[in-house]
């Protein structure tokens, strides 16, 4: 009887933790705020230039967040800076970072270096 109870308690705790970590919510937008995302993109034997790969990955992952793209600049080597308005909440950040890290596009992998929010005081 005791092992069954312990297993049930452990399963409930694990499921609760996973539910907390896996939940997805719509973040409340803060008017007048911005998020500046710095990212870097690497490619492996890609057919297109790395700048186009970085731009394609960014536009693909930008669909994961409701914030509008204000500006995007892609530098040499696949590094870029994007400005989104309004600022992203914690769930938006997780979705954008996951999309950039994930195998969203073949042979292209992005990494979010930093996300800096500019919120009105």
């Amino acid at each position: 009887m005791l092992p069954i109870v312990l297993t049930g308690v452990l399963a409930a705790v694990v499921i609760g933790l996973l539910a907390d970590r896996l939940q997805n919510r719509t973040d409340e937008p803060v008017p007048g705020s911005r998020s500046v995302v710095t990212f870097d993109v690497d490619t492996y034997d890609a057919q297109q230039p790395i700048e186009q790969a970085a731009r394609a990955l960014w536009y693909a992952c930008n669909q994961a967040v409701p914030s509008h793209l204000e500006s995007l600049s892609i530098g040499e080597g696949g590094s870029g800076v994007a400005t989104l308005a309004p600022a992203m909440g914690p769930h938006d950040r997780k979705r954008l970072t996951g999309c950039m890290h994930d195998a969203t596009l073949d042979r292209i992998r992005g990494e979010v270096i930093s996300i800096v929010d500019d919120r009105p005081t």
Partner: protein
Amino acid sequence: MSGRRIANVLLLATMATSAWYFFAYLVWWEWNRAVIAGVLFVAAEIGFVTLLVLSRLDRVSRQVADANREARVRARLDAAPNASRHFAWLRQPQQLNVFVPVLLGAGIVASALGWLIERIARLTGRTNTSASLSADLADLAPQAGGFLGGGDPIDLLQRPRRR
């Protein structure tokens, strides 16, 4: 460590790692990688279950083979001739040197007993056997002239009955 045990350990490690990364990728919101980790987990699980089923089948087939072996031995024992042969030692002529002296000795003893009984009977038996026997049988003898008194049986039957 046997090959099957190594395979089990590797498969279990693969299952644990892929399960961990499956949930980790879900937490990190990396769905494609989570799908790949999940496929790896399912593949390792199928391999592990297959090995488990194969080992169970191997054990069952071994048990069936052992049962057949036992049945064969039992059938062979049942088909063997009955070993309870009486006086089996008589079938071996080289052992008659024990039986013949015993038989001869028993015959000598029986003859001696018979001779002794005969001598005792001769010494104790009465010599006037016919005289004593006639005295004993005299009570059973019919009267003189028979039960009809010497008459003719037909004449007796035709004579009127006296009341």
